[in-house]
């Protein structure tokens, strides 16, 4: 069976790729397009390490087929920093030491950006619910929550 030819927009750039029906968006990003910032944790939608934004909606890229993404806008961790200038969330993650091994970090950053786009002034509880689909086995979450709240305050100009 021939491969599917898919055209999408990834981090603002039009991107063409070929994929098998069985390849997930995560497979395509990592193995075909070499955008390896998006991590594979569980591959079953439980851990959130592969979180990306698909037409503005936060999804697990392991639960989307590449063939489903034709004409869609995909945003990954690679599109978050502006050149060498880190996104405020990235900077606050560094400042608050909101990571240890780093596997969950790209997914958490993408999820946090999605949360703040909908709710620029979240409570601590809203941050915890908003990031409940992202598992971190190192940090215990407190520094992640602190970093997101601090970034939110900075982004609001507070």
């Amino acid at each position, binding site marked *: 069976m021939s491969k599917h030819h898919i055209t999408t927009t990834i981090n603002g750039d039009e991107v063409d790729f070929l994929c098998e029906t069985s390849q997930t968006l995560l497979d395509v990003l990592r193995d075909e397009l070499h955008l390896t910032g998006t991590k594979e944790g569980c591959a079953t939608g439980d851990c959130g390490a592969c979180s990306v934004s698909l037409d503005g909606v936060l999804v697990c890229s392991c639960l*989307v087929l590449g063939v489903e993404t034709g004409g869609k806008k995909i945003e990954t961790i690679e599109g978050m920093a502006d050149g060498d200038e880190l996104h405020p969330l990235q900077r606050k993650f560094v400042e608050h030491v909101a990571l240890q091994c780093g596997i969950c970090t790209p997914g958490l950053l993408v999820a946090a950006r999605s949360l703040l786009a909908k709710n620029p002034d979240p409570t601590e509880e809203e941050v915890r619910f908003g990031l409940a689909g992202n598992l971190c086995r190192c940090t215990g979450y407190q520094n992640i929550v602190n970093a997101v709240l601090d970034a939110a305050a900075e982004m609001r100009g507070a």
Partner: protein
Amino acid sequence: MRYEAPTSVEAATELLAGGKPEARVLAGGTDILVQMHMDAIAPELLVDIKNISEMRQIESLDDGYRFGAAVTGVELMDHANFCRTWPGVMDGVKLIGSLQVRGRATVAGNVCNASPAADSVPALIAAGAIATIAGPNGRRDIPVEDIGTGPGKTSLENGEILVSFFLAKARPSSGGAYQRFTPRTEMDIAIVGVGIDLTLGDDGVCTHARVALGAVAEKALLVEEAAATLIGTKVDEQALDNLAAAASAACRPIDDKRGTKEYRIEVAGVLARRVAAIALSRAKSAREK
């Protein structure tokens, strides 16, 4: 594996009825992609229903709401008026997976995956949701409680597909609620789930009730005996005691790693009381409006 994304319900049912035994409907994909990843299934054909416009709509009609089988949990959560009208259904929808999962997952998929622990199912049953099914012989409407028949099994025939759900306009002074019992608040699977809808008369007496239980049998159960304990009462302590007893009596659960039979039976009664109290307070506040 072939992938098709038809743009009409008829084209989808034709593909599904086309003699391929391992043809699967792809809605949100949050169950089917996991099953494929685990090698639990190996479909020869995936029929993606997300390009069928009829299945993408949330419609406010004169006589109720209709939403399509490809509408995601997040789309429902973002629909303020639907959320206000059907808080009990949304209690269930908001518990499906994580935010990421709800960004893809559909209520129809939650129903057709036929897990006895699916969170939206008791909530839909309590709300009296009707599913429209299309197949090679046309369309038929069935109540949601008639879809699941056992773990992973539905009453849908070969070539049939769930098109949409219909929720009839809520009665005045009515309220619904769903809760599940889990060790964690997020990203967990119900040990017991309870959905209750009830309607109050002008005198505060319950005139109509539906009680549905999840995760305590091979499928979600509509328990008329439990609803009968509320009807004709003011949903007082005595009625809630009777409700708890009737809910526990209806359970026929399994033992598994999440809970024992005895535990589930006990929790079903406790949870039914809590859910009835929430449904009651929502019905009262609906009456005040």
